């Protein structure tokens, strides 16, 4: 790997993290008042917003309507100023259409859609600042937004990325680590049951290493779950206290 050393001899990464350490996470639920649910998350320098509208009557053609469940409608977009080099358009390119589809599939696995026949749930995510793990940050923000909207979920969905450098799996990659070009694995996990809602790996990896990388990524998702759960419970406590009664 040319140029930068992603893992020092002492076992530290470029930003001083240990291989299995997440970046600092800050999150908040209920950032917007007009949507049914909303959330904001910072994972290191990656910042993402998610809003949820619905469940509501199907918009546009009613032919999309499903008589036995709600349809999930997503959009992934990135603010034009979110990346180092300016993006020409926030969404509609191949990459963001792919992310949109991923997001839809991930949440179809987690939301109890059969409870809302003939209706629609919109999940919109937006990257405000991109520094690696964009997809994961969006999934995590969307989970919080769905919980904020009071929409029934089988379980949280927690997503995290992992890489593999010098026989060591690294979790929650930053942009620098992503762009170094090694193997990358994205996981979205329903942590309680340890079901995978999404798994995607690009570039090749020796089969022997797959397990250790998967284990590391799954563990990272569980660590993330602990953080998200804390956010939800704090919010819950705060609001019930305020409502009183």
């Amino acid at each position, binding site marked *: 790997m040319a140029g930068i050393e992603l893992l020092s001899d002492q076992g530290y990464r470029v930003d001083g993290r240990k291989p299995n350490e997440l970046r600092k996470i800050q999150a908040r639920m*209920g950032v917007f*008042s007009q949507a*049914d*649910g909303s959330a904001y998350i910072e994972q290191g320098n990656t910042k993402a917003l998610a809003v949820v509208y*619905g*469940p*509501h*009557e199907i918009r546009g053609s009613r032919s999309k309507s499903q*008589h036995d469940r*709600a349809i999930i409608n997503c959009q992934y977009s990135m603010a034009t100023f979110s990346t180092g080099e300016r993006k020409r358009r926030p969404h509609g390119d191949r990459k963001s259409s792919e992310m949109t589809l991923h997001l839809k599939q991930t949440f179809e696995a987690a939301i*109890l859609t059969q409870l*809302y*026949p*003939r*209706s629609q749930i919109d999940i919109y995510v937006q990257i405000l600042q991109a520094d690696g793990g964009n997809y994961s940050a969006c999934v995590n923000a969307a989970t919080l937004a769905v*919980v*904020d*909207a*009071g*929409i*029934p*979920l*089988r*379980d*949280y969905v927690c997503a995290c990325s992992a890489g593999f450098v010098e026989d060591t799996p690294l979790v929650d990659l930053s942009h620098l680590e992503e762009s170094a070009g090694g193997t990358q694995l994205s996981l979205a996990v*329903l*942590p*309680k049951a340890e079901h995978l809602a999404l798994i995607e790996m690009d570039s090749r990896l020796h089969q022997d290493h797959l397990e250790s990388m998967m284990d590391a990524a799954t563990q990272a998702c569980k660590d993330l779950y602990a953080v998200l*759960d804390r956010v*939800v*419970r704090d*919010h*819950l*406590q*705060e*609001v*019930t*206290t*305020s*409502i*009183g*009664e």
Partner: protein
Amino acid sequence: MAADLRLPAPRKRSTDLPKEQGKHLVAPGDVITTDSGFMRGHGTYMDDEKLVASVAGVVERVNKLICVRPLKTRFNGEVGDVVVGRITEVQQKRWKVETNSRLDSVLLLSSVNLPGGELRRRSSEDELAMREYLQEGDLISAEVQSVFADGALSLHTRSLKYGKLGQGVLVQVSPSLIKRRKTHFHNLTCGASIILGNNGYVWIYPTPTEQNEEAGGFVTNTEPVPLSDREVISRLRNCILALSMHKMLLYDTSILYSYESAFHHQIKDILKPEIMEEIIEETRRRILEQEG
């Protein structure tokens, strides 16, 4: 002067309030009970004999039924609920009504009182004249008559207190902030009336002087509302917004207390964060005192 610009203040967490201890709070995926003797209600699902929460909220037990009430959600109407809604579509023999539910609600032509007597038969002329009674954009108050299998609500306005709404102001809050009471219609002593729709739509209007029985709720007063009444309505509107922003339950007493706490402030100042906080604190204190 006109513009009040400021830097955003860091959010205050309401740590000064006593922590809620007695409630069973759960998050999605939490196991509520493994006892198979319970019935599964809203906000829960069964997973291998375990009753698991699917939303974040407060666990409520009624006999054998376990529900989780989320903090915030779309309106989940039940028979008898009072709603305020907006007509979105006029169809054959029925109106579609937006009520903040997950599907549009329905108001059948047979579920409204038409002018000229309560028990008049619905003729085909009535069907053609539907748009004269209620058209797109009109606001109505109504009661939930039944719930369809897919969860859509069927409404009726077969009572003099329901029907088309006249002059007034609509405020939208989360349905979970509307406290269930015997009545959701109040003539407040401060000089205006409100309808607290269970669906979170609150209608504030000048207290009507007399009820016209013949109109069946379809004729509205077009006289200008005097300034003094509008001041009361505006103040009430801002107070209700303040209560909702601070996640406080809305009912006649809380609204009246906040109105009184806000009385010495200018109406437009009520929505400024620091003044809002002051009003809310005062309201909270008075509610606690009253509850003893």
